[in-house]
């Protein structure tokens, strides 16, 4: 039996009266990569943002149902603690522009007021940058601004920043949509390594990317989780005709 790390139970999300995520039940196994795909407006990003309680930051947004991290409802936990355990990387690389590469990596600690010794900071920076496959490229320029890096490097810096907080789950919202193919390939390679230590949930519009990087794929349509299955199964023989129409480009 796979060890489930994130589980939802009849989960719904709303913007005001607009019901955008409908009755989602899903189990995400530990150390797996799950791709979430679906047409624009299907609720996939909203669902992702609900997992670490980012959704509730928007005025008028609310939810019902349950999302469990292990067996604890994230909506019963302190939101800061939830976001420590469930890190997030966004569509566009967003390193803090005024901070060095070094300070960007440990920015999370400063923001939550956790103090680290110099030795711990150094170790955390090296570990996080190594895990995000950026260390060799930046080890001699750690005190340069993060914004001097290329787009792909900046995104890996953002991944390092999330890793530094030692999350259990990492959420990625279209993490390569603003990157060139080479940077995209390096991030995709990184996903395979990250999976060994973390559980990855990736919202992507790129179906080939979903096929390449994920173990399981969830297809959302009009706020519903239409199909959630092994990625190989999903891309060779999806069960639901809506999934088939979407992945074969016959969606109208």
């Amino acid at each position, binding site marked *: 039996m796979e060890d489930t790390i994130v589980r939802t139970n009849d989960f719904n999300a709303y913007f005001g009266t607009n019901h955008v995520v409908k009755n989602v039940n899903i189990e995400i196994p530990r150390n797996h990569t799950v791709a979430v795909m679906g047409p624009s407006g299907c609720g996939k990003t909203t669902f992702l943002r609900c997992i670490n309680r980012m959704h509730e930051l928007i005025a008028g947004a609310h939810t019902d149902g349950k999302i469990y991290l292990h067996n604890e409802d994230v909506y019963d936990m302190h939101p800061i603690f939830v976001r420590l355990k469930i890190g997030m990387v966004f569509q566009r690389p967003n390193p803090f522009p005024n901070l060095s590469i070094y300070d960007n990596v440990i920015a999370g600690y400063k923001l939550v007021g956790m103090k680290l010794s110099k030795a711990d900071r150094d170790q955390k920076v090296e570990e996080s940058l190594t895990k995000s496959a950026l260390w060799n490229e930046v080890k001699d320029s750690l005190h340069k601004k993060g914004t001097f890096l290329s787009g792909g490097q900046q995104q890996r810096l953002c991944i390092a920043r999330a890793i530094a907080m030692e999350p259990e789950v990492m959420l990625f919202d279209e993490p390569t949509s603003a990157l060139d193919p080479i940077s995209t390939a390096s991030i995709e390679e990184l996903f395979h390594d990250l999976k060994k230590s973390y559980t990855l949930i990736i919202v992507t519009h790129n179906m080939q990317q979903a096929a390449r990087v994920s173990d399981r794929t969830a297809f959302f349509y009009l706020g519903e989780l239409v199909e959630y299955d092994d990625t190989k199964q999903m891309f060779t023989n999806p069960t639901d005709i809506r999934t088939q129409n979407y992945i*074969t480009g*016959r969606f109208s």
Partner: protein
Amino acid sequence: MTQLEVELNELKTEVSNMWSLVMSQLTKTRDAIVYFDKDLAREVVLREKRVNAYELKLDRDCENIFALYCPVAIDLRFLLAALKINNNLERIGDIADGIARYVIDAPTPFDKTLLEATQLLDMFENSMIVTNDAKVAFETEDTHLARTIFEKDDILDKLNRKANHTIADCIKQDLAVTEEAMYVLSIIRKLERVGDQCTNIAEEIIFYIEAKVLKHFQAK
């Protein structure tokens, strides 16, 4: 219709054309035997090059669609099936070519009594029926028809097994027919392989439409 659908439809038409070419090779080979027409047999051998060229063209078409469109789900299954069916059809073309070469090599027309005793022409008829049924099943996406091919292949297998005894009896009765009997037996063996190729094709059709893998299963 998406561009991928256009490409896949064109590929389907091309596979059907390949099928027609191969079926015409089988028909001409049968006629070459019935009328002992060596010219017709030579035509089959010459046209085998066209079958081979067609196979390579279809392989390239499939390769291009894989590379350019990265198909998934039913499109992926169709493309995989088309690639294998193309290969099966080329082998049926090889069978027709092989039989035509026997006609060219044979010193005298095949003895009608031997042909009747071994039911060689019945085997030809059944081979052409299964090949045509497979074509119709592919074109109309009819998995029910595809499944009937497994039973029809059994008929070919039975005729093949029966021919062993018949040929042995014929040789026992008249040693002079030994060489001719060997040609007939070889042709029967080859026709039995047409049934096997069509069985493989039927499995591919069912795989592409129903996503069921029937290969190596006894009960289909």
